[in-house]
């Protein structure tokens, strides 16, 4: 057996099993990211309300989910929830745990976006007779969402890679598929390389999409894009792993 067989690798790259696994990775990541964004948006807006009880509950959630490993949360959802009679399929546990974890980080991102909209903007809106809810909806959030596009892109990038963790609860995504395939014939180099190629393809597509969204936002404000797509693909924008 040669150390590396391009033929075998190409076979895996084009196989249905790996394609399916990649789609599962995308699906889990997208679902978790959107769940996280929704939670983040609601909780960030919730932190602006005067009620101490609501703000305290949000603080508790952030404390819990940012203070424990996401792997623990994942295994907890999978193994402990059934004890209380909540039996969910593995992929649902994955989205639940990753979504709740992501929500905690998104809350901080959304909050920083909301805070970045200056107090003068709210004052002007209040002076026009808008009420708090209307100010949040029509003045603060539209501006905040533009500010948080780059960090959300980073989160999505991180999420694509973080989703590899759900292999531990048996969700048939890229890493588990590569691992299982290799355990049959010990072709780890080929299978893991294929998984790596899929991850790189997905993160690259994502970065290109992000550049287009950012440029579209700038165009809507009548300005020409200032940075080239290649500049935005610099290491500084390649995301972080938790």
């Amino acid at each position, binding site marked *: 057996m040669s150390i590396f067989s391009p033929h075998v690798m190409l076979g895996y790259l084009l196989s249905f099993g790996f394609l399916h696994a990649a789609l599962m990775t995308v699906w889990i990541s997208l679902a978790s990211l959107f769940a996280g964004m929704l939670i983040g948006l609601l909780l960030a807006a919730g932190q602006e309300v005067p009620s101490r009880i609501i703000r305290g509950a949000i603080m508790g959630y952030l404390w819990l989910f940012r203070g424990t490993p996401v792997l623990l949360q994942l295994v907890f959802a999978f193994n402990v929830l059934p004890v209380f009679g909540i039996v969910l399929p593995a992929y649902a546990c994955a989205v639940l745990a990753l979504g709740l974890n992501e929500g905690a980080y998104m809350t901080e991102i959304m909050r920083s976006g909301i805070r970045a909209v200056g107090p*003068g*903007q709210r*004052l*002007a*809106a*209040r*002076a*026009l*007779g*808008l*009420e*708090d809810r*209307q100010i949040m909806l*029509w*003045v603060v959030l*539209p*501006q905040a969402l*533009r500010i948080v596009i780059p960090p959300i892109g980073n989160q999505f990038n991180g999420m694509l890679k973080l989703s590899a963790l759900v292999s531990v609860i048996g969700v048939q995504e890229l890493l588990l598929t590569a691992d299982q395939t290799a355990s049959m014939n010990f072709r780890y180099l080929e299978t893991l390389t294929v998984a790596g190629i899929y991850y790189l393809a997905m993160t690259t597509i994502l970065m290109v999409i992000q550049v287009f969204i950012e440029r579209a936002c700038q165009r809507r*404000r*009548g*300005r020409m894009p200032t940075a080239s797509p290649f500049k935005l693909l610099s290491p500084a924008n390649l995301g972080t792993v938790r």
Partner: protein
Amino acid sequence: MTVLLEGIAVWKTYGNDDVLKGVDLKVHQGECLVVIGPSGSGKSTLLKCLNLLEPISSGSIRFEGEEIAHLRRGEAAAVRRRIGMVFQNFELFQHLSAEDNIALAPIHVQKEQPAPARQLARDLLRKVHLPDKAEMFPDELSGGQQQRVAIARALAMQPALMLYDEPTSALDPETVGEVLDVMQELADDGMTSIVVTHEMSFAQRAADRVIFLDGGKIAHSGSTEEFFSGDVPERVARFLGRIRA
């Protein structure tokens, strides 16, 4: 002349700081009142108190004959719709075009249909001499243009009273005139207004009365003619001399 807005013994305290110490003022329908005074004298705070952006500590504010100083949130918002306000830093909504800035409150507060609200926005842009800037975003407009859009935005709610908080202080000198011209045209059309400004030429041209605020109190108040005749207390004369120099 009917009194549109009246402040009686308006007192405002931040922590241990008395910013307003019993201010009495009256604005009649159609009148233009100019408020002058050194920085820190409480001019901006006074305006914010008058349209309920800041709660007052004691005293009374009457608008259109009704006591408004201690309203609940929703009722206070309803009063603010009747009082337009223009800020030193314009505070146009950065994510919206000039037209959408103006149409926002009519659409979301008055629940007007977007089409007539946009038509109103275009009419108002013509009124502030910016008929071709409807599609422009705030960061594409000069300071003077932004401030005129901000005036149009306030007018879109058809206010009974306009408050201007140093509307030209953040502007380049060459754009000050275009903003003051619009304010004067509105005043000449009978818009009741209270203007905090250092522009004495504007006060001289447009004001009916001038009040001089110092240390949170009205140190002097009188008709515009009297104010600029030189027959004013020493303290006022010194201030006027300083800002004209």
